[in-house]
């Protein structure tokens, strides 16, 4: 079913909050992977406020849907989202990165409620997601497994080994996203290690590919619902996004892959968020 105007308005509200949270937590943490946290806000918000069957009061509920943030460096935003969903107190994030905090840049499943897998080393998430999806099928569980990859992350051979396995086992209970923000650390993905023709690579590995605007709830939601109905092959949603989305001076600037914010810069980011939120 298409999203209603009202639903979209609600999701926008959550996204605005999450972007603010990302900036605040980055400020508290003394530095974080801001760019790649901002580019996936709509994907996370749509999954966590609309599609995932989860219960923050019972994080280990057996039949919950699973989500793996394979690009684990975006943990700063993911942790904030889990806090807002009610998995733990948002105030705890003030200690992010600090001594003995449950929250480091890359989140630890044993310390952060709501996390289905510890990630941070790129190229590990999709193989684990394939295992979760296979496990669900074998045990006749209805849960769906979602996995979110970085585009640069797809340089890793293990991603393609997992892709081969997902297609081989026809894992239609696995829905994979690529955050196609076109940058990694050293620069534009096409300059560092070219991925294009990227969607065709996934197709040739046996995936059904939907290319969408990764900041459009309507397009993302259409692709997710199509993926849920798909019975022939695993689905890859290629979400075209903007690294640093929402803060004008960070958008598309690779220097904001990782950064710290002083209070002046934090204020500037908030102003920028407020002005982009109007349109």
């Amino acid at each position, binding site marked *: 079913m298409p999203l209603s105007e009202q639903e979209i308005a609600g999701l926008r509200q959550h996204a605005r909050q999450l972007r603010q949270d990302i900036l605040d937590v980055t400020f508290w943490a003394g530095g974080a992977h801001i760019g790649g946290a901002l580019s996936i806000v709509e994907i996370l918000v749509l999954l966590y406020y609309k599609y995932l069957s989860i219960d923050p009061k019972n994080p280990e509920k057996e039949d919950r849907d699973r989500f793996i943030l394979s690009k684990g460096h975006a943990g700063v935003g993911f942790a904030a989202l889990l806090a807002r969903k009610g998995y733990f107190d948002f105030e705890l994030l003030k200690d992010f990165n600090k*001594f003995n905090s449950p929250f*480091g840049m890359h989140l630890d499943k044993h310390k952060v409620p709501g996390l289905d897998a510890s990630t941070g080393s790129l190229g590990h998430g999709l193989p684990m997601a394939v295992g979760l999806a296979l496990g669900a099928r074998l045990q006749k569980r209805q849960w769906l497994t979602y996995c979110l990859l970085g585009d640069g992350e797809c340089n890793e051979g293990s991603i393609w080994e997992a892709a081969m396995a997902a297609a081989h086992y026809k894992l239609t209970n696995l829905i994979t996203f690529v955050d196609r923000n076109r940058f990694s650390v050293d620069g534009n993905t096409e300059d560092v290690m070219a991925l294009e023709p990227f969607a065709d690579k996934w197709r040739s590995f046996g995936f059904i590919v939907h290319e969408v605007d990764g900041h459009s709830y309507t397009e993302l939601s259409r692709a997710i619902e199509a993926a849920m109905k798909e019975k022939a092959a695993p689905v890859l949603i290629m979400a075209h996004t903007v690294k640093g989305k929402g803060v004008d001076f960070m958008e598309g600037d690779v220097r904001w892959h990782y950064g710290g914010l002083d209070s002046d810069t934090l204020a500037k980011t908030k102003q920028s968020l407020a002005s982009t939120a109007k349109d």
Partner: protein
Amino acid sequence: MAEGLTWNVYDANTMTQADIYGDVLCLLGEKYDRIVGLSADLAKSTKIGKFAEKYPHRFFNAGIAEQNMFGMAAGLALSGLVPVVSTMAVFTTMRAAEQVRTDICYQNLDVKIIATHGGISFGQAGTTHQCTEDIAIMRSMANMTVVVPADGIECGNAVIACIEHPGPVYIRIGRGFEPTCYENDTYGFEIGKSVEIVPGSDITLICCGITVLQAREAAQILKKTDGLSVRVINMHTIKPLDAEAVRKAIAETRRIITFEDHNIYGGLGSAVAEVIAESGKACAFTRVGIPDCYSLVGYPEDLYHHYKFDADGIVGKVREVMGKDFEEDENWEDGF
């Protein structure tokens, strides 16, 4: 060793540890045209990017694909070049472990590895980016030389030395923001030869990496407050280990503690323990490092303090071991 490769020490003191090796590599690139550089989407963070900027045609970014990168490095070495590869320690020694072992070490190739973010120097990043296993892993690969410089200046020395040192070399550094230990590069760095940076006769602290500076500070404190004569050895090369310096320490001080930013299993502490055990001599001995767990999250200084290898922690450990008994050996004098 390469001549004419000194750099201004005053500059070095204002540079980060990683900056220094970047600059040294640029200089080496002039002298040796067979040097090529590689990184895996971390050229800027590891500072091999400095070499990449100066010699763009001699640098290869493998993208985020460490296994392929180390395989490529092996191929480049087979073609007659000398690849210098730099990425984080954790992705070098674990993600690409088999490429390093089978492609590089087994074939005994001239690949020089500068592994950054070793130990818990990037503690706030969590376990996925911490690396407290690398020394153990690299030490167990035949043909590999393992160097853990005390600071940026020593890293510069190690990089210069490794180019003319045959076979694979693993140089392990931190994140690059560590304080400097040495004031200049002329203290006589040699692969496989430890440096006694503080003389002493009551106890020996054998250190590598960031713990060297901390131990030197601890030795000063202990001298003042406890009147102890503490020997500090910078064991910058873990393999081949300077066993002679260890045996000398057993004979002359009979108390040894190792300090390292690494799991207490398999690293410097284990290497020293092997020499002590094989010496057949009694010796009060303790290893200090990460006590076989995944480190807590936190900034490195807080973690070093917690795991007791900052100056404070070292002082405490020395007092502990000074109170420890060891069995007297009647034939002590005729041992060495």
